[in-house]
């Protein structure tokens, strides 16, 4: 009897913190399998760096999913913003640079990319909030538009030969801590403040939970929706900048498929597709859980075809348990 109760209680607790349990479980599994080798600071650091850019995309789409939306345009918008950033950071003596012979202050690529991302977000947001397009369709369209713009802008060429100052944005570090990790912490903190401590954040949850009730409660649903897509766009712009800086180039394949990774990560992190639920800590744990899976399997030498398979199953299982929490609404 006591045993049963204990089991029940731990089950309840586990279901409440599915994401954390998955994450810690994987971490333990990996450390056992590799006899602790996988968990050296160096490896962890690499993992964090590898996931940092995706974190920005996840934070953006996480907020969107809280409002019961979705964004399929992430991958190509990040690709576009990376190309925009890179184009303003090419060495002036590089013959096939987009602006050959010109050099720009470091602020230009950053601002240009963030502006491009923000504008795209605004566009998505406008279509969805005021045009009343379903988010799936609106962002499906803008995904293709972003891809087209990127190809036109770069003439389908690689934007390479970036100057060292620009590359240092991502590649530098403060003491032992890589810049990228610091950026992620700052971004996560800001999004946390917005979601937890501002009126707007509360409004996002309310809109996702019951848009009609939100409207009746005096929330400007249209404006808030437009804003959430714009914020996400700005985050994608930052992601693009950091990605170009880290890779030292941008091309039409940069960030391809990032929308799926980001959506999968936040979903694993407990952001519910039915809207109105999710937290920044969940989103971040989701990102690192997915990262850990990738990284762990590579470390163990799992064939990359199988990696894809395992990843798919893990997403489904994590979300399955998460959905059970909300299944019995009455």
């Amino acid at each position, binding site marked *: 009897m006591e045993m049963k109760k204990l089991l029940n209680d731990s089950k309840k607790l586990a279901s409440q913190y599915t994401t954390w349990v998955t994450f810690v479980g994987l971490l333990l599994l990996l450390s056992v399998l590799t006899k602790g080798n996988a968990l050296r600071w160096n490896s962890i650091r690499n993992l964090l760096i590898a996931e940092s850019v995706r974190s920005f995309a996840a934070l953006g789409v996480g907020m969107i999913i809280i409002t019961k939306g979705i964004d399929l345009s992430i991958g190509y918008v990040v690709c576009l913003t990376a190309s925009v950033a890179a184009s303003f950071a090419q060495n002036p003596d590089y013959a096939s640079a987009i602006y050959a012979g010109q050099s720009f202050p470091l602020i230009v690529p950053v601002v240009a990319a963030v502006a491009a991302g923000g504008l795209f977000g605004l566009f998505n947001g406008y279509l969805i909030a005021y045009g009343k397009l379903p988010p799936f369709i609106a962002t499906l369209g803008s995904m293709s538009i972003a891809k087209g713009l990127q190809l036109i802008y770069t003439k389908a060429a690689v934007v390479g030969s970036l100057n060292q100052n620009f590359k240092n944005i991502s590649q530098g570090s403060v003491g032992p801590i890589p810049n990228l990790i610091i950026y992620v912490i700052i971004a996560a903190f800001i999004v946390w403040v917005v979601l937890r401590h501002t009126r707007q954040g509360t409004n996002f949850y309310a809109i996702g939970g*019951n848009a009609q009730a939100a409207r009746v*409660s005096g929330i400007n649903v249209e404006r808030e929706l437009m804003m959430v897509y714009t914020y996400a766009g700005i985050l994608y712009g930052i992601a693009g900048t950091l990605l170009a800086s880290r890779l030292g180039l941008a091309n039409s394949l940069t960030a391809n498929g990032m929308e799926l990774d980001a959506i999968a990560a936040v979903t694993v992190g407990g952001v519910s597709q039915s809207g109105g639920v999710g937290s920044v800590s969940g989103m971040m744990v989701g990102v690192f859980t997915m990262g850990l899976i990738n990284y762990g399997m590579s470390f163990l030498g799992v064939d990359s075809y199988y990696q894809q398979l395992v990843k798919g199953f893990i997403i489904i299982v994590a979300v399955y348990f998460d959905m059970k929490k909300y299944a019995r*609404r009455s």
Partner: protein
Amino acid sequence: MESTFALEMESITKVFPGVRALDGVTFRVKPGTVHALMGENGAGKSTLMKCLFGIYKEDEGTIKLNGEIHHFKDSHDALQNGVSMIHQELSNVPERSVAQNIYLGREPLKKTGLIDHKRMNEDTKELLKRLEIDIKPDCRIGSLSISMQQTCEIAKAVSYNSRVVVMDEPTSSLTDNEVAHLFKIIRQLKAHNVAVVYISHKMEEIFAIADEVSVMRDGKMIGTYPVSDLSNDRLINLMVGRDANLRFPTVKSSIGEEILRVENLTALNSRSFKDISFSLKRGEILGIGGLVGAQRTELMEAIFGVRAIREGKIFIKGEEVSNITPRKAIEHGLGMITEDRRGSGIFPLLDISTNTSIASLKEYLSKIGLLQHKQLKEEAAKYNEALRTKTPTMETLIQNLSGGNQQKVIISRWLMTLPDILIMDEPTRGIDVGAKYEIYQIMCQLVEQGKAIIMVSSEMPELIGMSNRVMVLCNGRCTGMLDKQQCSQEAIMRLATQFM
């Protein structure tokens, strides 16, 4: 062998995190009787019925139908075995037709395995005709009024030809005529030896239709009594367990200057209300009466900016407000408790604290624009305490509260915005008798502070007992304005049926 009971639930216990919703409850219903299940908000009535219907799995206890032990794994299983239920909250698919909703999950099929739409519509027509319900089988259920939708749910529950029919507050949005109609249907069921479990907070209904009454309090069964052994006061006493004040408070407010004026308001939808004018003064409670379909809710929604208008003017505190939206309305001091709790009231996945404070966040910002969580929580808790919202904590998700307690949270939400004009559309729907009078008391306090209230209500006693004046609508038109002296049930009914 026939068992003496159609339904026996023995020592049912159900625990939710932080609440013992049912504590060894035993409940027995005889066939061919109407058995009322009574209790305050949160007593455990709906939970008990959900255990029967396979929506919740009870932790302990047994359920017998006709003497045989049954445990339904889900609602489908229950329906198959002769138990059907009208849920407290509407549970239809708004985008589909009436027929599709009634036959949801058991559509008649053709030989080819495809849905036989023709038969489905004909069967529905037949059913509605038998029950004398005037609704077309092929109209979209979401386009019907809430009361019509509830009537469809009743038809649906009856259509299963079950041995046990559970009705969880079936009349919460029906008007008197429709209630009378429902009672006719219930008597038909009784004649066919069906056991009906009837949950309602409306006393007069219990005495009109029930044969036996079981009373629950705080998750426990207090007892079962033949209705003839109970008086109104005794029943309330059993439910509440304390002395409750059950008189309409006398409104002692003094009528002040005009605070809201509506001139020739006409809805964009030409079948809705037309040419409505009235004025509301500080310290006044204006009741809005009428039958279902009289467009009362639509009128209120238009004043609050939820619904579009074609013509007309709205003046708040002397200032004309054009192109009104809910946000503008709130800025001008309006508040509105909507009729459809599920559709436009609750945020199911947010906690009680946020559900209460969501419309007043603006007033609780720190200097740098961040939310002051502590004050928000305290203030939200204060309003919920005043209304006695029954909940384990303020962090409980609102979807885990009983229906009546959800309603109290919504009322708290609008009280917290400190509105000058509060529109209340069926404010006491689903609220237990005790709490009802607490709400009346609060309405009184509001008008005594010089605020004004518009109350739409289908409950005559409430309308007559609380209003300074009653405006009656019929088919979208104002058929009269009655002041306190003229106000009687007959006068309201006469005006409400003027164009019929």
